C-alpha cells in the first residue's frame, strides 16, 4: 500500500514530504530513551557524554537530518523548522537537566542563596559579594519566587538552561530575519548558534538573563532600522577603491547621527520601542557587570553600519551603565579600583589568563578544552568564509561579530572575558557561518569570492548542499555535546552530595563554618550571613589543602565525589587523594558524622 496525502489542489504528496518531521519525532523518541537509560552515577571523566548511549547520538543525527531536509525544501516551512530547532536545543541544553539529579554548578546554588537573602530581608547585602553590587537580576528572581509561592529559588535551577536557551530563540529569529541574510541562511545560522554554544553561561544567573536583554535590544534595532541606500562609487574605479570610499563614510557626521539608517515604523511605535530599549538598558546596567558594555559596543556597531537611526540609544545605555558603576556598585570598587582598570590595554595577559591557563589538567580534561578551542575556531573560520562569500547591503553582522572583542582590551573579567566575548559574538558569527554555506547573492556590497553556479547540476548540487549542512551542523552538535558536558564530572552533583550539604546546614549553628576541599558542591543556597563556607582555593597540593582546612577549623568538612573529580581532572591530584585527606582529618580531631555513596560529612569532635 502506498501512503499518500492529497493537498488542496488534489496533487498527491508522498510521505517523504513529512520526512523531516518524522525524523524529528524519531529523534525525540530516541532522546527520551537515552535520557531514561542514562545512569548518572556511572559518569566518567569525560562528563555527560560518558553516560549517553547510542540512542542519543542516533536521535541527534535524525534531528539534524530532518532539519537539513526541511531547510532545503521549497516552499520553506517555518513551523517545521521551528520545531526541529527546538528539538536540537532540547538535545543540547535539556539533556543534562534531564539526566542529572540536581542542578549543576555551584554558582547557581550560590545565586539561590543571594535570592533567599533578598526574600528574607527585602534588600541586597552590600559588601558581601561583588555580584551583589549588580542586584537587579537577583531582585527580579526574588519577586518571581515570591510571586510563584516558592520558599526559595532552588526549584528554578535545574531546568533553567533549556528554558532560557529557548527564550533566546525569539530574538534570534528576529535577528536572523532582519540581518540581511536569506531566510534559509537565517534558520541555518540559528541552528549553528545552538550547535556551537558550548559556553555554559545559561545556568541560573544574571548573565543568562542579561544575554536575553542583549539579544532583544539588537533584535529590536535590526527590525526597526534598515540601511539607507548609499550612492555607489563608479564601477570603473574598481572594487577596492569603492570599498575604501564606502568605508570612509563610516565616520561621517551623517552616519554618526543616524541619518544613514531609515525606518518604516511610525513615530509612536519607534518612540515606544526606544523607551522600552532604554528601560532594558537600565535593567541591564543594574544587573550585570559586562553585558551593558557589550550592548553599547553592539549598538555602536549598528550605528556605524547604518542599522541604528538613533545614536541617543548608544549614549543612553553607556551613561546608565557608567552611572550604576560609579554610584550603585561603589561597594565593589572602593579600595581596589585596579580590579576594574588593572587589565585595561593588557590584551596579551588577558588572552593568556583566558586561554593558556585553561589548557591544563588531566588528559581527559585537556582533550575537552582543546575541542572547545577547535570548535570555536572552526565556527569563526566558517564565519570568515561567509564574510567573503556573501553579498549584502550592510556589514552589520560582521561589525556585531567583531565589536565584542574590544571588551578583551578593557577587561580580563577574572579570566573569563574571552569566553563572554565569544558568547556575545556567537549569534552573528553563526549567521555569517551560515552565509558560508548559503550566501546571499544580492546586495550593494559585493562578496569577495566569485559566485558558485550549480547550473544543470542543480539536483546533485542540492543533495551535496544537504550533506554539507548535515555534516557541519552534526559535527558542531556532537562536539558541543562532548565539551558542554565536559565539566560535568565535577560541575554536576548527586543527590548524596545535596543531602550532605543539607545535613551540614542542619547541624551547624550561627557563626559556624563549613569547610570544603574545593568549590564543587551544591552549597551556598541558604544562611549566607550566618554560616560561612570556606574552601582553601588553589593551595598547590592536596596536603596543603588539608593543612589550611585544619588551621581554619571548620565545624564541618564535606568530602564528595565532585570535589574529588575536580582535583583529579583539573588540578592533577592522584586518584584517592580525598581518602588520604579524610584519614588526615580523622587523625586530627574530626569524626565521620554522616556518609552517602557520593559524599561524607566530617564533624569536629567536641
Amino acid at each position, binding site marked *: 500500500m502506498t501512503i499518500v496525502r492529497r493537498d488542496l489542489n488534489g496533487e498527491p504528496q508522498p510521505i517523504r514530504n513529512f520526512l523531516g518531521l518524522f525524523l524529528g519525532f524519531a529523534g525525540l523518541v530516541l532522546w527520551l530513551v537515552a535520557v531514561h537509560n542514562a545512569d548518572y552515577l556511572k559518569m566518567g571523566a569525560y562528563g555527560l557524554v560518558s553516560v549517553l548511549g547510542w540512542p542519543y547520538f542516533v536521535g541527534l543525527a535524525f534531528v539534524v537530518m530532518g532539519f537539513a531536509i526541511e531547510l532545503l525544501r521549497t516552499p520553506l516551512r517555518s513551523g517545521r523548522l521551528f520545531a526541529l530547532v527546538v528539538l536540537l536545543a532540547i538535545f543540547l541544553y535539556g539533556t543534562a537537566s534531564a539526566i542529572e539529579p540536581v542542578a549543576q554548578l555551584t554558582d547557581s546554588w550560590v545565586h539561590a542563596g543571594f535570592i533567599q537573602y533578598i526574600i528574607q530581608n527585602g534588600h541586597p547585602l552590600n559588601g558581601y559579594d561583588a555580584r551583589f553590587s549588580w542586584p537587579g537580576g537577583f531582585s527580579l528572581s526574588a519577586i518571581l519566587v515570591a510571586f510563584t509561592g516558592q520558599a526559595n529559588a532552588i526549584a528554578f535551577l535545574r531546568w533553567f538552561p533549556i528554558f532560557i536557551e529557548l527564550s533566546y530563540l525569539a530574538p534570534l529569529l528576529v535577528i536572523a530575519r532582519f540581518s540581511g541574510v536569506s531566510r534559509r541562511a537565517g534558520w541555518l545560522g540559528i541552528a549553528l548558534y545552538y550547535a556551537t554554544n558550548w559556553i555554559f553561561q545559561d545556568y541560573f544567573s544574571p548573565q543568562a538573563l542579561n544575554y536575553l536583554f542583549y539579544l532583544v535590544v539588537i533584535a529590536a534595532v535590526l527590525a526597526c532600522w534598515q540601511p539607507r541606500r548609499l550612492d555607489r562609487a563608479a564601477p570603473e574605479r574598481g572594487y577596492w577603491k569603492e570599498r575604501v570610499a564606502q568605508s570612509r563614510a563610516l565616520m561621517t557626521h551623517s552616519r554618526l547621527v543616524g541619518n544613514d539608517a531609515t525606518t518604516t515604523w511610525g513615530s509612536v511605535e519607534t518612540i515606544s520601542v526606544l523607551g522600552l530599549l532604554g528601560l532594558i538598558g537600565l535593567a541591564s546596567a543594574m544587573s550585570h557587570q559586562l553585558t551593558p558594555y557589550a550592548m553599547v559596543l553592539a549598538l555602536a556597531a549598528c550605528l556605524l553600519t547604518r542599522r541604528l537611526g538613533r545614536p541617543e540609544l548608544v549614549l543612553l545605555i553607556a551613561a*546608565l551603565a*557608567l552611572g550604576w558603576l*560609579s554610584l550603585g556598585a561603589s561597594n565593589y570598587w572602593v579600595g581596589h579600583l585596579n580590579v576594574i582598570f588593572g587589565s585595561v590595554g593588557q590584551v596579551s595577559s588577558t588572552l593568556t589568563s583566558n586561554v593558556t591557563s585553561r589548557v591544563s589538567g588531566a588528559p581527559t580534561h585537556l582533550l575537552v578544552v582543546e575541542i572547545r578551542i577547535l570548535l570555536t575556531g572552526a565556527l569563526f573560520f566558517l564565519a570568515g568564509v561567509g564574510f567573503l562569500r556573501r553579498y549584502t547591503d550592510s556589514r552589520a553582522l560582521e561589525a556585531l561579530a567583531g565589536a565584542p572583542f574590544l571588551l578583551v582590551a578593557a577587561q580580563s573579567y577574572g579570566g573569563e572575558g574571552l569566553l563572554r566575548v565569544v558568547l556575545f559574538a556567537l549569534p552573528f558569527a553563526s549567521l555569517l557561518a551560515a552565509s558560508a554555506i548559503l550566501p546571499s547573492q544580492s546586495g550593494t556590497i559585493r562578496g569577495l569570492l566569485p559566485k558558485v553556479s550549480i547550473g544543470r547540476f542543480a539536483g546533485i548540487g542540492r543533495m551535496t548542499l544537504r550533506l554539507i549542512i548535515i555534516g557541519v551542523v552534526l559535527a558542531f552538535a556532537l562536539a558541543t555535546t562532548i565539551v558542554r558536558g565536559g565539566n560535568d564530572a565535577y560541575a554536576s552533583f548527586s543527590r548524596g552530595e545535596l543531602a550532605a550539604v543539607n545535613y551540614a546546614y542542619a547541624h551547624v549553628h550561627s557563626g559556624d563554618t563549613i569547610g570544603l576541599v574545593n568549590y564543587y558542591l551544591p552549597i551556598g543556597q541558604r544562611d549566607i550571613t550566618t554560616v560561612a563556607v570556606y574552601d582553601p582555593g588553589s593551595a598547590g597540593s592536596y596536603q596543603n589543602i588539608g593543612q589550611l582546612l585544619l588551621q581554619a577549623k571548620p565545624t564541618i568538612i564535606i568530602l564528595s565525589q565532585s570535589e574529588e573529580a575536580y582535583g583529579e581532572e583539573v588540578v592533577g591530584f592522584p586518584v584517592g587523594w580525598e581518602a588520604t585527606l579524610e584519614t588526615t582529618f580523622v587523625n586530627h580531631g574530626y569524626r565521620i558524622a554522616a556518609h552517602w555513596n557520593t559524599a561524607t560529612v566530617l564533624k569536629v569532635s567536641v
Partner: protein
Amino acid sequence: MNDIVFANAGALGAPQVIFVSLAAVVTLLCLRALTRVMRLALSRSVSQVLDGSIVVLFLLFIVLIIVRFTTIG
C-alpha cells in the same frame, strides 16, 4: 553651597553631583530622541544648542566619574 563644593575638588565626585549630571544627560538624550522621532521642527540654533548640551554634559559626566574613581577608589 559653592564654598562646600569648591573647598574640596573631590566633592565633585559626590553621588548627588554624579546623579544630577546623569539625570541631565538622560533627560536631554530622551528629549533629542523624542523631537527627532516625532519630527518636531526645531530651528537650527535650537538643535545645535541641544546637541552641544548633550556633548558637554556627557563629557562632564565622564569627568565627574573619573573624579569619583580617583578620590574614593
